[in-house]
């Protein structure tokens, strides 16, 4: 590799024309109530907040903010539905409802994808190809388990828990709702779910689907609001389990509030995953995996590969390839089918990301960003990478939750393992090498819940997902995901 050679040029005369996904078929209301006991109700709190499109800051709808009376009502209807209907229904009947929800998600896939992109800022390519299909797949998968729990846990007499409170984040709104609701219903529990305040719309569209599926009233209740609404759910006495996905700091405060109670919990929290690239890796495919690992969904991914560990002998060529690949990414209108990088989810998240970018610069790391035009309105951050990063840099330690990659080098396998594990988090990791034995050696030594080899960010409902250390406890997906919603003997 010759460092005097110019980088590849990706700006030319032949550029893609706009190719916007149509929004004509979208049915959105100006104002959304709370979905309690099978109906959309006006909030007893009488409060609403607005949800905006982060790519142009236009208001889309008004969303109800649930207060304590609303939460009491939601939990009561979930409890009634549990005691009188859902826990008494034969498991085979339960699974029919779950199948029906899965099929309705598929039927409305296009609308859900567009709404997800409008409300959250993610590229339509991702909501269309990842979020919505995976949401449907989760319902299909768990529908199949509903009447087979005795086979899943032989001789352990699986029993449902009761009312579960579920609090989900803004990065994969519909998909997270599916990850939470599907296993809870399959195991015979009823649900009070709160989506994140900046991305409530697809959860409310899911509520409409649940209505259409004729799910008995109260089995799923979807209440909107901010952190204080979440606290009301967490602290409610009739909620027997909390399933939370979000930041480690909020996860810690939830664990504090339920300490000393009999409430069960699963926590899927932050991460600072390392993608480890060895000198014998398929380099161009590794570049692609690193790009997908950190820039997928603008880096708003708890398992994002936000640290890159490159073997020193290939450092120069790998970074050159990575920089050239970043220059070919397309940032812009999330509704454009060709967009690779959409809008950052909110103003506050953009501020956080920019704060970390400043810290990285001040710490002396070298910054490189996609050279592109940033739209006037909305919240945007170009794909960013930092080289010359040390393990003790803040940008190598703290979760940024944005499109920012911190690149370090290593010399030996042991050094790679030490650096990868030297973090309070333990959610995921990636290993890139052509050598199978190296993959298995590393996967047994990395403290991470999910380890991908020669790929990254691949999800499937059959595969459990969750973390070690401060990345949380409990698993979602697969058989493990059922266990989290059952009392076993």
């Amino acid at each position, binding site marked *: 590799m010759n460092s005097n050679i110019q980088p590849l040029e990706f700006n*030319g005369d*032949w550029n*893609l024309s706009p190719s916007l996904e149509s929004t004509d078929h979208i049915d959105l209301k100006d104002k959304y109530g709370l979905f309690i006991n099978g109906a959309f109700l006006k909030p007893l709190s009488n409060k609403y907040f607005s949800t905006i499109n982060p790519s142009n800051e236009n208001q889309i709808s008004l969303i109800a903010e649930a207060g304590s009376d609303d939460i009491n009502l939601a939990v009561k209807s979930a409890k009634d539905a549990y005691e009188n209907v859902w826990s008494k229904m034969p498991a085979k009947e339960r699974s029919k409802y779950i199948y029906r929800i899965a099929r309705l998600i598929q039927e409305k896939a296009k609308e859900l994808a567009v709404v997800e992109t409008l409300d959250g800022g993610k590229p339509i*390519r991702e909501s269309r190809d990842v979020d919505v299909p995976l949401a449907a797949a989760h319902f299909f998968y768990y529908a199949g388990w509903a009447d087979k729990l005795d086979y899943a846990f032989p001789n352990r007499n699986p029993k449902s828990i009761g009312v579960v409170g579920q609090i989900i984040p803004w990065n994969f709104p519909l998909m997270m709702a599916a990850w939470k609701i599907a296993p809870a219903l399959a195991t015979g529990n009823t649900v009070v779910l709160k989506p994140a305040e900046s991305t409530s719309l697809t959860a409310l569209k899911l509520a409409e689907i649940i209505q259409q599926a004729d799910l008995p009233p109260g089995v799923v209740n979807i209440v909107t609001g901010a952190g204080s609404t979440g606290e009301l759910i967490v602290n409610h006495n009739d909620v027997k389990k909390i399933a939370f996905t979000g930041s480690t700091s909020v996860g810690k405060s939830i664990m504090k509030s339920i300490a000393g109670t009999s409430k069960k919990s699963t926590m899927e929290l932050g991460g600072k995953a390392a993608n480890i690239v060895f000198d014998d890796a398929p380099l161009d495919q590794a570049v692609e995996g690193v790009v997908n690992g950190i820039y997928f969904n603008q880096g708003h991914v708890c398992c994002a590969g936000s640290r890159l560990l490159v073997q020193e002998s290939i450092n120069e060529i790998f970074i050159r*390839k990575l920089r050239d690949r970043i220059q070919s990414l397309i940032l812009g209108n999330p509704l454009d*089918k*060709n967009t690779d990088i959409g809008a950052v989810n909110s103003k506050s998240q953009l501020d956080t990301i920019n704060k970390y970018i400043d810290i990285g610069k001040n710490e002396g790391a070298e910054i490189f960003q996609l050279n592109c035009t940033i739209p006037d309105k909305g919240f945007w951050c170009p794909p960013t990478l930092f080289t010359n990063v040390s393990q003790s840099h803040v940008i190598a330690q703290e979760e940024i939750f944005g499109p920012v990659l911190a690149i370090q080098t290593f010399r030996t396998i042991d050094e790679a393992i030490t650096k990868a594990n030297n973090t309070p988090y333990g959610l995921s990791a990636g290993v890139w090498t052509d050598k199978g034995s190296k993959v298995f050696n590393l996967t047994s030594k990395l403290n991470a819940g999910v380890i991908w080899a020669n790929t990254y960010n691949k999800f499937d409902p059959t595969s459990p997902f969750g973390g070690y250390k401060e990345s949380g406890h409990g698993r979602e997906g697969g058989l493990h995901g059922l266990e989290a919603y059952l009392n076993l003997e």
Partner: protein
Amino acid sequence: MVNFFSNTKVDKVGIEDRVSRISKRSLKSDAKLDGLKMILSMIDLTTLEGMDTVLKVQQLCYKATHLHYQLSNLPNVAAVCVYPNMVKTAVDALKGTDVKVASVATAFPSGNSTLEIKIKDTKEAIINGAHEVDMVISRGKFHSGEYNYVYDEIAAIKEVCGERIRLKVILETGELGDFDHIRMASEIAINAGADFIKTSTGKISPAATLPVTLVMLETIKDYYYKTGKIIGMKPAGGISNSKLALQYLMLVKETLGPTWLDKKWFRFGASSLANDVLMQIVKQQTGNYQSKNYFSND
């Protein structure tokens, strides 16, 4: 034995993922029309049949410079590609135009002959006026591990071609087995002096595919990083419709950048692609698809 190649590995799943993502790019309006015209300008219009005749080649050459009898503002194709014994006919027919004449050589398509005969084959094509030579590598030697032989043979043919005649080296990827082999053969060809690397003869199935082309483009990229030199790429065979051809252009655009989006560095080896592209151009301009009868079959 000298190790010509870098031992760089290729991951099949990763290559296919990347191709699938690029294939989903949505090309509309201006971008599509410009892309379609670019495709026409990059075509090596080809006839490589046992039953080729002087009159057939003359007809093809006329088509090369008159793609459609009504549409204006169309480019000519890049070249006409024929067997060595038809080179003179093609050169005469294309006199005064910017269309090049490419000749296959070196015992095309099998490559099973002696180096002596291959050199003679190449010289004959050049003497008759070919501007470009499309040679085949010795796949048998490649599979028996005689990489030096394959390298030396390409180098010998490049020597015959000199600086003036552009050499395209056909790897016949459908016979090479896997992506690691395709990568290795690409490196051998480039280091031995190829100006272009080309996927296929068109006589073997599978011929060109998007994943194979991506592997070869990445080899070209690595050579650029090492030397600053640009090597051209020619997928050939099996590319018969516009949609697929546009996907090839996107692959080039996102792997190497627009420098390569020029007939100087990218070609399509195809016989029936041009008419489908013309049909799409008419559709873009008029909004209607025309009957195939409005497009000449030469």
